């Protein structure tokens, strides 16, 4: 029997695609070498955030956030969906200028954002150190326990008839068929490569590299922090293109735990914890939130962001193919953009008009580079 769609990868992107396509009545099979939400998805922070690095990034994150916020009421309690909002923290007056620019950008694009001055910031987050210049509060950002949310999306797909094959590695994707490591074939009218950083193995030519990250989580300290706090320079200054970098990024979990990021390292292929980068990461966080020093850390883990050269994911049809699609390379925004990605892919397969233009994310851009 042939499926309408075979999805390679059961991370949050694959699960979201499965949920969307199954609800449209297509027969779907999801295949993963390991299990549901066990790769990059399991390692992430679960921050649903609108970003403005580029118009294209803004469009996808903003669209996806809306989809998440619409879905929120249906998510089970275990998904711990919280509208905590994001505060982009400005350390000094120079960064306040950037706060104003960011606010203007968001407001011009219909996203609610509010500037906090020094006192406003301190009152909102008393554990930040005194003397920080202010910040930008983006109210409708949220956090989610993405492992349970992914499970929820997959269960929805299964409810609508999807099959999952976990513990099965796909070794080849061709028009109309995927080949498993054991030699079996699965026939499907459409194939979606949603294999994260492994997507390049199945679809050569895509440019995705692993960008390693570390996260640190504490015991429970309810009320210690109430918004996702990120230093304003997050992607620009702190996370430059080259070399290892760290930035202050702290998240309140509904359990009362404090989740601390973030680090970015290229050229690191092992999952080991790098104590030097963890110390740089915590030292950076102490500059913003000195009281973090006394919190008890229970776990540290690592994960790999699937990073593309232009920081945008590959979403859409693979060039020179009729029915092979890519949904991979979401870097550190895969949890946020999973839902938007799924809609764009479903639109393409079903021939629907999309809510946003899918053109900036087309995989064809990597093949037209010279």
């Amino acid at each position: 029997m042939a499926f309408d769609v075979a999805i390679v990868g059961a991370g949050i992107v694959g699960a979201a695609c499965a949920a969307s396509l199954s609800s449209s009545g297509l027969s779907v099979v999801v295949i993963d070498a390991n299990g549901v939400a066990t790769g990059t998805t399991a390692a992430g922070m679960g921050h649903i955030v609108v970003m403005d690095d580029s118009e294209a990034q803004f469009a996808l994150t903003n669209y996806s956030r809306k989809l998440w916020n619409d879905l929120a009421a249906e998510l089970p309690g275990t998904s711990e969906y919280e509208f905590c909002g994001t505060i982009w923290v400005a350390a000094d007056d120079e960064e306040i200028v950037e706060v104003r620019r960011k606010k203007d950008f968001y407001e011009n694009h219909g996203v609610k954002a509010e500037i906090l001055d020094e006192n406003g910031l301190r009152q909102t987050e008393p554990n930040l150190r005194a003397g920080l210049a202010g910040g930008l509060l983006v109210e409708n950002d949220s956090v989610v326990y993405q492992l349970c949310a992914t499970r929820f999306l997959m269960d929805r797909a299964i409810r609508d008839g999807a099959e999952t094959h976990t513990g099965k590695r796909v070794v080849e994707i061709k028009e109309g068929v995927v080949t498993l490591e054991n030699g079996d074939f699965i026939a499907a009218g459409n194939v979606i490569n949603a294999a994260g950083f492994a997507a390049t193995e199945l679809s050569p030519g895509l440019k995705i590299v692993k960008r390693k990250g570390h996260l640190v989580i504490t015991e429970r300290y309810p009320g210690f922090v109430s918004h996702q706090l990120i230093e304003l320079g997050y992607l620009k200054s702190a996370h430059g293109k080259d070399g290892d970098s760290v930035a202050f990024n702290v998240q309140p979990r509904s359990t009362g735990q404090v989740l601390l990021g973030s680090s970015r390292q290229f050229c690191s292929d092992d999952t080991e914890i790098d104590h030097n980068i963890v110390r740089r990461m915590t030292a950076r966080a102490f500059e913003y939130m000195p009281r973090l020093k006394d919190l008890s850390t229970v776990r540290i883990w690592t994960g790999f962001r699937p990073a593309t050269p232009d920081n945008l994911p590959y979403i859409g049809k693979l060039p020179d193919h009729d029915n092979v699609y890519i949904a991979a390379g979401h870097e550190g925004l895969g949890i946020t953009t999973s839902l938007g990605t799924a809609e764009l892919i479903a639109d393409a397969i079903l021939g629907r008009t999309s809510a946003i233009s899918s053109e900036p994310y087309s995989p064809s851009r990597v093949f037209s580079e010279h």
Partner: protein
Amino acid sequence: MNKHTSEILIIGGGGAGLSAALAACSKNGVSVTLVDDNPRLGGQIWRAELGKTKSPDAAKLIAAVEVGQINIVNDAQVFAAPGANSLLAETPNGTIEFDYEKLIIATGARERFLPFPGWTLPNVFGAGGLQALVKGGLNIENKRIVVAGTGALLLAVAGYLKSKGAKVVEIAEQTTASKLTKFGVGLWRSPSKLTQSIALRAKLLGVPYLTDCWITSAQSCRSPRVSKGVTMTLDDTPLLTRGLPHPDQTSNDILKAVTFTRKGKTWSIECDMLACGFHLVPNIELASMLGCTIDAGFVAVDEFQRTSCENVFCAGEPTGVGGVESSLIEGKIASFAATGEFEKALEFFAERVRTKKFGDALNRTFALRDELKTLADDTTIVCRCEDVAYGRLTEFSSFRDAKLQTRCGMGSCQGRICGAATEFLFDWKVGSVRPPIFPVKMENL
């Protein structure tokens, strides 16, 4: 960060660690460091009582180690290995990095807890945990205490509690009378004073001792006051009870009675405290973090106590629960092998065979019966740190799946309690161990 360098680094100040330390410093010129997480040496087996070590043998050994050319670092909790031949430990004065040429892991064992309805009530303790609290000054005079579970420890704890004025109203041992008798008969082979059978010793204690008997639930009543007198802070609780959340300060429920079953009959007994433990779980987290091969839950070692990792040795309970005599001998062998004195190590091989037989008999005797897998109902909490109930866990097929979806094992005890329980209940393996292997202040990472 303070740095400390030594040729031989020993982690753990119980029987195996002390024995290893003493053997290591018998060779002149070797620098030896012993790191322990308690304020005083002795481990769980010889935990000091109000600052004093009661066992004369232990006191002698500790004294010898203390006068030896050994650098002893107390109150230091090893939590990470930042690189080859290096460990990080958190101390009250910050983090120390310990660099070594050879490492001897002697991290001992902890009690196994199994979930049953009511096991999370205030005044339910681990057997060893309660003993440690009493040694630390908790008054149990005239308290009615039930001791239950399995293992040689139960009787020792009951005797100790009685000597401190408690009324031990019942000892419930889940193993069968015939297994116990066999164990008793086999004891002539053991070298020590353990020549009396356990049942006989119970009789001498004057405490009702029932075999084939186990707890099915613990019941509570409303208390006019919040949990009588037992308050613990993380800093002064012994390792055995660490990770167990503090008695619930918001609830008035406290332990009132426990229900037993034996040969088809069930009955309840009123009591003030319950001390329970289901034999021992080896502390393999450090070895596991370093990447040592783990075989059926224990650290795999060769005849010289070498692990699969170069320059890393392991002695005592992490290599197989075998009791203190086994630990003492393995500590010596590991130490002689680590200092290159293989001839000396060889001298103890025969003795190790003997103690190993005793350990095997111990484990056979106190193997857990399958009925204990059925005590928890769907609402019984299994992971106390993250409040995950038994019914929720039955949805999953592996520890990792359950962990990722429910956070079971992700709390401050890092799965030390629920991991050991689910290993028995569902046959799950806990999997890889990452630093920090103990909670550590963020500034000390």
